[in-house]
C-alpha cells in the first residue's frame, strides 16, 4: 500500500522456547479449532457432512476473491476493486447470457478476460503511471460500479428483461448454472472444487517456486528486487492480473449461484475478502499475506457465521461474537509475543 511504512516485523518465532513458541505459532489455529470443536460438540447438525459442505460452499467465493487480494498484498500493493470487479463480472455474465444469448462456453472466457483486463488496467496504472495502488484501484472500483449499471440502466438482468421496448429472452444456461450449483460426484459442490484447486495451485506457486519468492521479494523491497534482476514491473502487473482474474472467477461463480444479473452483488465481497486475508496474516504467526492463512481465514469466518446461525444466535449478536473471537485471537497471539 502506499502509505509510507516500516516493513512489518515478523513475529519472532525462532527465539521463543517451548510452550510459548507453540502458542505463537499455533495459538490462533488452536483457538479456531477450539471454537470449531465447541460448535461440533454442542450442535450435532454442525458436524454433519452436509453442513461441512455448506460451510465450504459458503466461503468458496470469498475465498477465491480473498486469494486474489492476497496476491496483490504480497507484492506490497492492494486491490480495492475486487468486490466491484466481481459485481461487474456478474453483470457481464448476465449480459452475455440473457441479452446476447451466448453459450456458456463463450461466456466464461469472456468474463475471465474481463477480469484480466481490469487487472491489467489496474496494473498499468500502478506500474506504468505510478499511481498509488489504493488510489488506482479505488478509481477502478468507482468505474466498475458505474459501468455495470449502464447496459441495463440499473436494472437487474434476468430472462425477460425489457429495455427500450426490446425483451431479452436469453437464459442462464444449465451449464453455466452448474458452475455455481453443480455437484461433483453428486456430493461436492463445484465451487468448492474450484476454490480448492485455486488455493492449492497458488500455495504451491507462492511457497514452493521461485516465482512465489519473486512476488514476496517485490513486496519486501522493490528496488533491491529490481537490482537483483527481478522484473518487478512484470511481477506487479501479474499480481494485479491474478487478482483481477480471481475476482472475476469469483464473480462467475457468484453469477451462477444467484442465477441473474444482480446489481451490487459484488460489493460485500471487498470487506469479507480483505478480512479473510488479514486474519491470514496472523495465522501461523507469519505476519505477512499468505495463501494458507487466507484460506484458513476464510474457512474460519465461514465457520463462525455457520456455527452462530446453527446455534440460533440472534443476527445482531453475530458480528459482536465474531469480532470478540478475532480480538481474543489477536490478543492471544500478539500478547504472548509481547510478554516474552
Amino acid at each position, binding site marked *: 500500500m502506499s502509505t509510507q511504512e516500516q516493513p512489518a516485523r515478523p513475529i519472532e518465532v*525462532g527465539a521463543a522456547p517451548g510452550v510459548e513458541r507453540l502458542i505463537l505459532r499455533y495459538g490462533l489455529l488452536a483457538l479456531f479449532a477450539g471454537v470449531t470443536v465447541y460448535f461440533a460438540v454442542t450442535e450435532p447438525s454442525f458436524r454433519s457432512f452436509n453442513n461441512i459442505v455448506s460451510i465450504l460452499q459458503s466461503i468458496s467465493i470469498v475465498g477465491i476473491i480473498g486469494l486474489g487480494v492476497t496476491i496483490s498484498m504480497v507484492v506490497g500493493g492492494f486491490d480495492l476493486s475486487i468486490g466491484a470487479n466481481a459485481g461487474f463480472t456478474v453483470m457481464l455474465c448476465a449480459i452475455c447470457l440473457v441479452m446476447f444469448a451466448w453459450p456458456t462456453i463463450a461466456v466464461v472466457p469472456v468474463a475471465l478476460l474481463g477480469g484480466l483486463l481490469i487487472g491489467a488496467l489496474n496494473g498499468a496504472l500502478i506500474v506504468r503511471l505510478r499511481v498509488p495502488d489504493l488510489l488506482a484501484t479505488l478509481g477502478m472500483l468507482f468505474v466498475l460500479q458505474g459501468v455495470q449499471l449502464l447496459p441495463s440502466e440499473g436494472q437487474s438482468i434476468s430472462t425477460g428483461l425489457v429495455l427500450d421496448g426490446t425483451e431479452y429472452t436469453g437464459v442462464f444456461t444449465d451449464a453455466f448454472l452448474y458452475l455455481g450449483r453443480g455437484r461433483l460426484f453428486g456430493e461436492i459442490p463445484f465451487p468448492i472444487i474450484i476454490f480448492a484447486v485455486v488455493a492449492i495451485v497458488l500455495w504451491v506457486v507462492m511457497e514452493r517456486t521461485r516465482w512465489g*519468492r*519473486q512476488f514476496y521479494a517485490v513486496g*519486501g523491497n522493490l*528496488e*533491491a*528486487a529490481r*537490482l537483483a*534482476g527481478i522484473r518487478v514491473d512484470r511481477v506487479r502487473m501479474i499480481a494485479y492480473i491474478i487478482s483481477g482474474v480471481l475476482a472475476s472467477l469469483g464473480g462467475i461463480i457468484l453469477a451462477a449461484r444467484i442465477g441473474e444479473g444482480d446489481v451490487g452483488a459484488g460489493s460485500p465481497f471487498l470487506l469479507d475478502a480483505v478480512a479473510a486475508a488479514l486474519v491470514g496474516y496472523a495465522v501461523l504467526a507469519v505476519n505477512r499475506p499468505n495463501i494458507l492463512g487466507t484460506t484458513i481465514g476464510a474457512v474460519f469466518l465461514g465457520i463462525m457465521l455457520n456455527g452462530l446461525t446453527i446455534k440460533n444466535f440472534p443476527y445482531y449478536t453475530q458480528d459482536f461474537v465474531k469480532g470478540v473471537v478475532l480480538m481474543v485471537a489477536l490478543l492471544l497471539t500478539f500478547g504472548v509475543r509481547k510478554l516474552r
Partner: protein
Amino acid sequence: MTVALREVAKSFGSTQALRGVSLEPAAGEVLAVVGANGAGKSTLNKILSGALAPDTGEVLVDGEPTRFHSPLDARRAGVETVHQHASEWTIPGLSTAENLTLDRLASGEDGAWASPRRLLPRARAVAEGLGLHLSDATLLDDVTRLGVSERQLIAVARSLAQQPRLLILDEPTSALSTAEAERLFDVVRKLREQGVAILYVSHRLGEVDALADRVAVMRDGQLVATFAKPFTREDVVNAMLGELAEEIQRPSGHVAGEAIVRIEGARLFAHSEPFDLDLKEGEVLGLTGLIGAGKSELLGALFGLSPLPEGTITLDGRPIRPQHPAEAIGHGVHLVPEDRAAQALIPGWSVRGNATLALVRRFFTQAGNERRRVIDLIRDLRVRTAGPEAPIESLSGGNQQKVVVGRWLLKPARVLALDEPFRGVDLGARRDIAAKVRELSAGAAIVVASADVDEVLEVADRIVVLSHGSVVQDVLAADASREALTLAMNA
C-alpha cells in the same frame, strides 16, 4: 569479453551526474574509481549494471553497443554489482537463504522449485564463497535479524557466486570491519587472478593502495585522471579534490577536561567483562573494535536504545538511565546512528526536513530560519545538492551521510556520539566533519565509533578498543599505532 562505457552522460533534472565518461575495466585487473561525494561514481556503476539508462553515450559489451533495459540484461552480460546503499542489499520479509539465492531465484537457473529445503544447500554454498558460516536457523530466519554488516556480506557473497565477468563493488567495505574487509580483499585478488574485471569504488585510499591496478579519478561527473601502478596517494587526492585537503589539526599537547560521562561496572552483554569508561570534555574519543564488539551497543546504552544489563552511567555527576532516545536527548546526549537508511533518513523528505528533524524546538515550525541554517550546513560540509528543498533521495550516498551527521551538528549537545559517521564519506568531507566535531568538543564529550582503525587514528584524541563487549585498550591517539590497535581488537 569486456564491458565498457563510451562517452556516457547522465543527468537528473538540473544535476549533471555524468558528463561524458569512458571507462574500460580490463579482464584481470582491479580498477579503482575514486572521487569526492557526488562525483558520479555510483551513477556510473548503475549504468554499467543496467539499473539506470544513460542519457547519451553507450555501454559496450565486447565492443558492441548494447542497451541494458534492466539489471537482468546486465547480469546476463556477466556484470554483477554490489550497490552502495544498505537498502539495496537485502530484502526484508525474505529469509537469509532466499536473500543469498535471490539472483538464481530471479534468473531461474536452478529450476522453478524453491522450497526452503531446496534453498538451504544452495544458500550455504553461496555463503561459503565468501567464507561465511551460517547456521540453518539463521538461514531460515528473516534477513532483518542480521546486522547491517552481515547484510553487506550477504550482498557481496551473492554477487561472487554468480561468477561475473565484471564485478562492481560500490563501497563494499562501508559496513565492514578491517578483518572482514581483509577477507573480502583476498577474494577479490583471487577473482583477479581468474581474469575477472573488477570495478572498485571506495573512499578508503588504503584499500585502493592495497588492491588497485589502476585508479580512475572522478570529479564533477568527469573522469579527470587515470593512474596506473605505481601511483602515489598525493596524486590521487590531488586529482580528486583539486587541492590537497588540509590535514586535521589535532591540538598539540592534548588536554582533556573534566569527565562528563562516567560509565562504571558496565556489562554490554550478559556475559561480557565489566569495564569503566570516562568521556571527557574537550576530547574526541575514538571507539573501535570488530563488528559485534559492542560499539553500537555502548552508544545505544548512552542514548537509551539498549539499557545496560549491568552498570551505571553518570552524566555530570548525576546517574542517568535513559529508556528512550527522547530522554537521552533531554539530557543533551545525541547519537548519529550507524545505518543511515534504516535509522536516520526519512524518505520523500527534503534535505531541510531531514537535517532539521531533531532541531525543531518551537511549536510552530519556521521554514525560513530552518532554511538558513541548512544552507549554512550545506556550505560547511560541502553537501552536493540542488538545494535545501531537494529530496534526500537525490543526494549521493556520502552526501546523504553528511546530512545525517549535520542533523546533530545543528543542535548543541553535552555528549555527541557518532556511530560510523564516515560511512561513504569522502576524504575531504571526512575532514570537514572531523573539524566540525572538534569544534563542538569544546563544551561536550564526543565519541566516534568506527570499525576502521585508520579513521579512528585520524580523528580521535584518545582511542578505546572494544572486544567481546569489554574495553581491552584505552590509549591516547598520540601513543597508538595501527598495528597495536588491530592486535588489541582481535584479542
